[in-house]
């Protein structure tokens, strides 16, 4: 075991600029919540290279279809959001838990804290989950969420988005992010979307319209691939 440890490999760290800084003055909520002291670099240990997982028995097979959670069908534009979870070396991340949540077509969340005076939809809960398949693929049926106002600054509106949570293969790869839609006029004005300095990295949060997964007379397809940190190529050195 000691010999194995001497060859221990962690996960790669983000390229500079591809992840947001904690403090983003334009995003007002970060001002009192971002750490002010420098983070302490932690070489990965078994505590970071292992991580939680769920068996398929914990998964509700119906939870990947957000349009079938009420008595009737939710209002809005039906969409299929599919993609693949992979690592930076293009290896599939199989059987990992993805959870999503979103506003309804009118831009309202089913949440007590959401006081936006847009209507709730009795047929839309706005949450789903699934496991990726053995190739890392996932697929959700849902409705396109609406934009919604928030109080960050005068006339602030969030571009349409779906929140994504992915466990990944290890504690080190845990990711929560948001998926946006192509051509959304609100994107240039959104401090959350724009918090990432690297423009290419930022734009990878925008899903792609996809004819391949669009279903005739049923739903438009959007593709959103999620990339998790890859494994270090060089072992940890004493």
């Amino acid at each position, binding site marked *: 075991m000691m010999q194995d440890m001497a060859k221990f490999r962690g996960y790669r760290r983000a390229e500079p600029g591809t992840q947001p800084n904690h403090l983003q003055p334009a995003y007002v909520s970060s001002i009192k919540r971002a750490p002010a002291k420098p983070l302490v670099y932690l070489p990965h240990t078994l505590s970071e290279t292992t991580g939680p*997982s769920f068996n398929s028995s914990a998964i509700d097979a119906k939870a990947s279809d957000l349009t079938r959670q009420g008595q009737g069908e939710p209002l809005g534009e039906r969409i299929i959001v599919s993609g693949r979870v992979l690592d930076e070396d293009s290896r599939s991340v199989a059987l990992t838990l993805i959870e999503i949540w979103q506003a309804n077509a009118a831009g309202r969340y089913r949440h007590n804290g959401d006081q936006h005076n847009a209507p709730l939809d009795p047929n839309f809960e706005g949450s789903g989950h699934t496991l990726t398949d053995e190739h890392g693929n996932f697929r959700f049926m849902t409705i396109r969420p609406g934009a919604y106002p928030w109080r960050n600054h005068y006339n602030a509106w969030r571009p349409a988005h779906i929140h994504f949570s992915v466990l990944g293969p290890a504690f080190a790869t845990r990711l929560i992010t948001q998926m946006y839609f192509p051509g959304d006029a609100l994107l240039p004005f959104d401090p959350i979307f724009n918090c990432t300095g690297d423009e290419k990295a930022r734009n990878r949060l925008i899903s792609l319209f996809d004819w391949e997964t669009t279903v005739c007379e049923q739903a438009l397809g959007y593709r959103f691939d999620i*990339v998790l940190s890859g494994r270090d190529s060089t072992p940890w050195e004493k």
Partner: protein
Amino acid sequence: MSLQATTSQTVGPYFQIGLSRFYIDDLTGPGIFGDVIEIVGRVFDGDGQPVPDGVIEIWQADAAGKYVHPEFLQESENIQATDGQAEEQRRGQSAFRGFGRVSTQADGSFRFKTIKPGRVAAPDGTLQAPHIAVSVFARGLLRRLVTRIYFPDEESNVEDFALKLVEAGRRHTLIAKKLSDGRLEWNVVLQGAEETIFFEC
């Protein structure tokens, strides 16, 4: 490297909708071996105000220092159960999942019931002190914050791989305090003089 990891975004204020299905505040249960512990704490912002809309996730080894994960299974296949207690530990390990997730309450508080983890190896071949890996998510946090919970009265803390990376004057932010009723208290201060140690992970 051909690809770059996807950019993190805040969990926002409405995560309850999406994340509550897999809230787990009690990691104990039948067949799970180890000392049962209760960890309570609160999350505070830079003004000392409670954070009522945070998510805390924990990940930990079982009482024998084993993680329920493929990287560990290979190793544990080589470990033979030699007596009754080892066999009990082996079985206990299979029931223990090691993962917890809760949201904070209106007063910023959270609570987990779990077992005290065993020691696991560090990359330098030493054994780490017992600890729990923690992720903190909240509105206002564009990336998760990573920290650890250590245990009071643990002699192994002084030689721990991660604690040694932390300046001595701030190590106490990672070590839970024992309350008079036996529970462990561990708070998260996001910003300020008593700021919790957060790791770049």
